[in-house]
């Protein structure tokens, strides 16, 4: 099997059996990953799961003890310089020169990416405009808000329009507004066809942005799939009724059959809904026929939080 392809598919990021040990603790312990071109892949896991170590190995900042990894077709240990020409990295800290303006930062990183002075200046202007920082002028980065810093950090990772972007917890520590700004920027990247590897502790973020997700725990991938597929692994959809009068709870539970679960505190009854819409229609009709007043009737899908807790608990 030629490296870089598996079952006829070409992967932009590929890792096989990565191991990275610190003393007797393995930060990566047989880590595998495949990311097809042009997709957003989320690495989801608790603190210390090995997400950042994986990103540092894939971006050539860290040498693995064992295993192989290729990014954009280049081996990260043997062709580090080529890998660096094809990637952009946005790490956990906004890696910027605080004393310089946003423009000066981008021009410096542009020059160090071997753009000519004029091209570096032009690129800095383009990126500032694109990330809504065009009017920051000579203001030093230390006076920027958290969201502005993050956007500038993203811009710095994009100077060479790299085909592969690594974002390590890009919204950690941001307020909801800053987070929305970063999400919008990531979506714009994907629209341009960039392959993105994103690590996050926020399930909502992975759900919002990623095509596929790897759940990482204790240095290895414990589950992989689309958000929908992962949610299905915890169990299917459920129909949920919130009754108006708590006295109606037993009657509502009877409607849903033997698998119904009742939660008196929230006046809620729920049961598996294998047929989704058909189940929902039947439940609504039965409620009307039985004269039970409901505040809400809905089909609910398990959240990624439930998936996450389920997977990281079972792996531990």
């Amino acid at each position, binding site marked *: 099997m030629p490296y870089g392809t598996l079952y006829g598919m070409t992967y932009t990021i590929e890792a096989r059996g990565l191991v990275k040990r610190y003393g007797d603790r393995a930060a990566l312990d047989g880590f595998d990953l495949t990311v097809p071109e042009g997709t957003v892949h989320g690495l989801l896991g608790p603190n210390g799961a090995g997400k950042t170590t994986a990103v540092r190995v894939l971006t050539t900042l860290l040498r693995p003890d064992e295993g192989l990894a290729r990014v954009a077709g280049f081996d990260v240990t043997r062709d580090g310089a080529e890998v660096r020409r094809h990637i952009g990295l946005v790490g956990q800290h906004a890696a910027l*020169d605080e004393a310089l303006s946003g423009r000066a930062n981008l021009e410096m990183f542009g020059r*160090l*990416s071997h753009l000519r002075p004029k091209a570096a200046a032009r690129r800095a202007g383009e990126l500032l405009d694109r990330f809504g920082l065009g009017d920051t002028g*000579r203001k030093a980065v230390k006076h920027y808000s958290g969201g502005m810093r993050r956007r500038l950090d993203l811009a*710095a990772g994009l100077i060479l329009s790299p085909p592969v972007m690594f974002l390590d917890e890009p919204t950690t520590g941001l307020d909801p507004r800053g987070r929305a700004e970063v999400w919008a920027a990531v979506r714009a990247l994907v629209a341009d066809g960039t392959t993105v590897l994103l690590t996050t502790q926020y399930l909502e973020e992975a759900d919002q942005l990623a095509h596929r997700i790897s759940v990482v725990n204790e240095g290895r991938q414990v589950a992989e799939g689309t958000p929908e597929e992962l949610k299905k692994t915890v169990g299917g959809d459920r129909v949920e009724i919130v009754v108006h009068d708590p006295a109606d709870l037993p009657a509502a539970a009877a409607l849903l059959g033997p698998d119904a679960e009742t939660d008196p505190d929230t006046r809620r009854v729920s049961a598996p809904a294998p047929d989704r819409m058909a189940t929902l229609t039947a439940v609504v009709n039965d409620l009307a026929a039985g004269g039970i007043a409901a505040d809400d009737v809905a089909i609910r899908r398990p959240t990624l939080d439930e998936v996450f807790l389920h997977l990281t608990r079972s792996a531990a």
Partner: protein
Amino acid sequence: MNRLTWAFADGWTVTRREVTHWTANPGGLVAGLLFPVMVLLLFAYLLGGGIEVPGGDYREFLMPGMFAMTMVFGLEGTFTAISTDVTKGVTDRFRSLPMASSAVVSGRAAADLLTTVLSLAVLIVSGLAIGWRAHNGFGDALAAVGLLLWLRFALLWTGIWLGLKIRNPEAVMALQILVWPIAFLSNAITSPATMPGWLGVIADWNPLSSTAAATRELFGNPGWANDTWAAAHALELALVWPLVITAIFAPLSVRAYRNLSR
């Protein structure tokens, strides 16, 4: 462009970053340049009145000591800049770019030498203003400046190594304080002969003392007669000490930088 020209171009970009800091924050630059002048004035006018130098004026004696001391104080700037970049992730960003990896160090070295030249210039002008003179002509004065920069160059590697090794802010603070006794335990402001025996020996062998004593000779400034071997061979030691420091800390720095990927 080939690899070597890129290495120079990248190093220059990193150096220019420091110059941009000056224009972005001129107050910081001025404060940094005036600090040694303040120390100079403290010793020249507040303490110096009580110190007698045989065959000369205390200020004439003091200036070469101040020059050498400023070289040692520069160490602090180097390691603070390096450790800030490492902890802020700027070093990682540099390392993820297709730039020459040597530029991170060469750019810092050039920037710090540039700052040192500026700092020396300010101090020389201040010295001239308070009556200090170089008596042996331009050539010897230039050689003295060369010796001072040679010491600073050696300490660059110490600063880079410390900056790569020491990450937590408390340790950085402790080091900033430790620079003081190291600088004062020398012949920069007074004769080691006046110190308790063993302290005097350490002060005599302090690389700073050798550079200070050698530049005193070259500038034709007075010093205490001191019959120790180290004092008698100040010029040789002023050449050898920085060489030894560089030979130790340059490889250590390279190794510490490589170990960032471990």
